[in-house]
Every structure is written in structure tokens, then in C-alpha cells.
């Protein structure tokens, strides 16, 4: 089984086959001692403490989704296809081709068009007054 697991890379296998250099040998720790001083290596295929068996033992093609290999495979396909191909690629293309966001390109074109038009007619590029002076109603001198 070690050979099968070895395709995950040399580092993984080295962890299992090479005993650690700093192997502390001492008397069996009392029940209160923590597990930081490792006196026994657990055999491969069991993680310490929980008795869990790695999913890769039963299903070497485990993708992380389900212990049933068929569901695992389909879940992986659904996730990658709809996540990457549909959402990111098709969704990204949709977003890329969205029209002029916030009308910025329109604003630029309109500004250039107006400037050209006003220069041609000799008008000033922009009115001096922000508000139309005829629309401002001021109180006469007699009123408070």
C-alpha cells in the first residue's frame, strides 16, 4: 500500500518509511503525559488518536467529496464544471461584454462631441454660471 501512496510524492513516503532522527526513547509515558514525545510510530493508514482510516485506502481516486466513489466522481465533475467552466468562464464572458458600466464611455464620447460642436460654433465650452441667472429670485431692497 505504501507503493500506491507513493505516487503522492516522495515527501509523503519519506514520512512513513524513514524513522525520525530525533527518536526519543524513554519509558512509557504516563496517561497524563502529552503526545509530544513520540515513542511509537503508528503504522501507516491510521491517523493517531481517532482510529480514522484514510479515504484513499478504499478509493485511491478520492476527490474529497464523498465516500461513495461514484458520487465522489460526479460531485467533482459538477463542482469543476459549474464552478469553473460555467460560473467563471461563461459568467466572466457575460460580465466582460456587459454594456458601458456607469455610462463612462458614453460620457467621454458625449463630452468630446459637445466640445467639437461648441468649438465649431464658436460658443464657450461651458457656461460661466452654474445656475441660470434669470431663474434666481432675489428679494428687493425694501424687503427684509
Amino acid at each position, binding site marked *: 500500500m505504501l507503493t500506491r501512496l507513493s505516487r503522492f*510524492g516522495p515527501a509523503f513516503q519519506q514520512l512513513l518509511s524513514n524513522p525520525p532522527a530525533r527518536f526519543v526513547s524513554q519509558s512509557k509515558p504516563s496517561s497524563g503525559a502529552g503526545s509530544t514525545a513520540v515513542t511509537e510510530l503508528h503504522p501507516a493508514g491510521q*491517523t493517531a488518536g481517532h482510529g480514522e482510516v484514510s479515504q484513499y485506502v478504499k478509493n485511491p481516486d478520492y476527490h*474529497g467529496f464523498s465516500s461513495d466513489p461514484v458520487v465522489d466522481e460526479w460531485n467533482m465533475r459538477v463542482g469543476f464544471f459549474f464552478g*469553473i467552466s460555467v460560473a*467563471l468562464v461563461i459568467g466572466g464572458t457575460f460580465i466582460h461584454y456587459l454594456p458601458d*458600466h456607469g455610462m463612462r464611455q458614453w460620457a467621454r464620447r458625449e463630452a468630446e462631441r459637445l466640445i467639437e460642436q461648441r468649438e465649431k460654433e464658436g460658443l464657450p465650452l461651458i457656461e460661466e454660471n452654474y445656475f441660470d441667472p434669470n431663474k434666481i429670485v432675489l428679494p428687493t431692497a425694501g424687503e427684509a
Partner: protein
Amino acid sequence: MLMVLTPTLMLVPTIWATPAKWLWPSALLHSLLIALASFTWFKNTAETGWAFLTPHMATDPLSSPLLVLTCWLLPLMILASQNHLSSEPLNRQRMYITLLTSLQIFLIMAFGATEMIMFYVMFEATLIPTLFLITRWGNQAERLNAGTYFLFYTLAGSLPLLVALLILQNNTGTLSLLTLPFSNPLLLLTCSDKMWWAGCLLAFLVKMPLYGVHLWLPKAHVEAPIAGSMILAAVLLKLGGYGMMRMLIMLESLTNELSYPFIIFALWGVIMTGSICLRQTDLKSLIAYSSVSHMGLVVGGILIQTPWGFTGALILMIAHGLTSSALFCLANTNYERTHTRTMVLARGLQMALPLMTAWWFIAALANLALPPLPNLMGELMIISSLLNWSWWTLALTGAGTLITAAYSLYMFIMTQRGPLPMHMITLDPSHSREHLLIALHLLPLILLILKPELVWGWAA
């Protein structure tokens, strides 16, 4: 709006009716399709103002990025939770996904609300599923305390908000976001007006969180299960920022002076929480304090009330949402293998899981705001607008940037570099699911470099 809301509502019966074998693939499929549909909210052809308008809900350039982020996050949460829930009874798994879906429903209605009371009700409603997630599915005994802190900090802040909103309704006759910006400016002169101002903002400051009322965040983020941490960091914090940006329109005249201490609190918080990150032993706690730090910068940007401040705040909110969620997912991949969050116990992982190291690297770089990622663009705009307000803030924001870089690199080096500890002898290789999960966080972040106008808001 209904095109996304109705499928999300119907996802709940789907979850309960799907046979057990296909529950998770089906939930993932449907939530990805809903996320695809939510991209239509990015279409914003008006210069300003509301799109997708219905009598009760609408989107505008401020809320559409947050809405899309919310819808994008549900499939990611489903992907992240699949493994640690696999040993639970089926109905509890269904309940979990239902809680996540209900969070999405409330969040869509909150960000899309056109009326402040609806926003308030949805803002409060998001507390309930999150509380369930933290207290039922958290992993340590501290989760009960965390749930209490989370609930009561937020409630204490938001009850004054309710009173403030009712006062506003009484005075102006409406709380519709469509018309409130055009109402006459309020004359805010008396001391009780200042209380009203504080009441309007306190809920959002607690939610963001502002340094000083941030204590709920490390507890809640750390004790929550992965989906809880993701939704908290990515979206629920942004509810505070969004609420503040909406309310500040009404609070115009007072904010110029009253915001002073809060900006200082926020900037001081950037430094303080950044420094706390450098001292953390717990990985999730480090990421949680990093969230407080980034959100402090966002609070500063919002309270400055300039166009660049608002834009920077929104960009940073979206970028931080994706980055922080990615970091929590990465921390969870560690936790599922080693069952510890202590960094010294799970380090040197580059030796064992080199592909994950690539993702850790990109996420850490995003966290420290590497250009050209949107994290930097947001931070830079906020720092510039703060500088315009006062030169002295540069000392705080500059130091904050430095400390952010320091703790992001510290986190990367601690978890990935160095010798692999001797007690880690069997680590499962990285699952395709985990690679997909992180990719779906970071690829949109990178794609945002190409079209930043999606997250600019109406201000820039």
C-alpha cells in the same frame, strides 16, 4: 431580483427532497447556478441610481457587488462544509445547508432593501442562523460563549438603531432609500440629536467591527465552523459597512465633527489588532484579528465621506471578503487534518502539501495587499483620502500597512516553511475539493483586476 431570490427560496425544499446520496452535489449545482444568475446584477447602465427596481427591492452600484459576493459564497460554503459534516446524521446535514441558504436569503433581502426598516429586520435576521451555526456546529466548548458575545454585542448596538430609525420615520415620514437622499437636510443641533446620530451608527460600528467593540469577532470567527467563519468574514461584516454608507447620507452635518474619534479609533485599531496578530498562536484567531484590522481601514474610509473613501471602502470590502474567506478555508484544510489550530503544531506544511502552499502564498499576498490585486487598490484609495483629511493619519496607516505585511508573511512562514514537525506522520493529500474551493475564492479576486469598475460603486 426575483430571478435570484426565488431559486434561493426553492433551494430549501430541494435540500429536503433530494435523496441522501446526491444531497451535496445537488446543493452545489443549484447554488452555482444561482451565483451565475446573480452576475446579472453587475449590469449597471445608469450613471447613478437604482436598477432592477421593484416596490421593495432594488440594486445600485453600492449593493450589487455585495449581492454578487453573497450569492458567490453559498456554493463555496457548501464545498467547504462537505467533509466535516459527512459523519453527521442526514437530517442535520440538511439543516446545516438550510441554515446557509436562509442566511443567503436574508442577506439578499438586506442588501437589496430599499427601505431602512426592511434592511434592519434582515440585518437582525441574519443573526439567528449564524448563532445556530456557531453554537451547534462549533468545535470547542467556547462556542457557547462565542455565540453569546456575538448575539449580545450586535443586539446591544442595533436596538438604538431601531429607535433611531423610528425617530427618522417620524420626522421625515419615510425611510425609503430611494427618496431619503433628496429630503431636506436635517437640522441636528441638540444633544439628543447627537445621541440619535450615535444610535444610527453604533450598530454598524459594532458589526464592522470598530476597534473597541470588536471583542465578539475573534470569538465568533474562531469558534464557528468553516461555513460560519466564511460567511461572517466575507459578508456579515460588510453589512455593517453597507449600512453605514446608506445611513451617512442622512447624518451629513453632524458627521464632520462627530466622526473624528471614531476615525481615530478605527486607525488605532488597525495598528493594535495588527500587532495582536503578530502575537497569535491560534491560526484562526490570527485571521480573525486580520479581519478586524482591514475593517478598521474600511471604517476610516467610510467615515471620511469622500468619493475616494467610499470607493476604497467598497473595493476593500469585496477584496477582503474573498481573501479572508480563502484564508479561513485554508486554515480549515489544516484543521481537518491535524485537529489543531495552534500554528506551532501544524507547520512546515510545504514539505507535505506543496500545492496547498501555492494557494497559501497567493492568499497571504492578497492579505498583505500586493498590487495589482484589488486589496491594494482599496487600501490605497482609503489611505489617500485619509491623508487628504489629515497628514497625521499617514503615520497610522503606514504603520498599519507595514504590520499587515508582517503578520501575513508571519502566517505564511509559520504554516508553510520550516521543518515539518515529527508528530505529523500521516496527512491526507490535498483533495480536489479543497483546490477547487480555494481556486473559486482567488480566481474571482484576480479577475477583478481586469474589470475593477464592477466594484467601484457610484463614487469614483
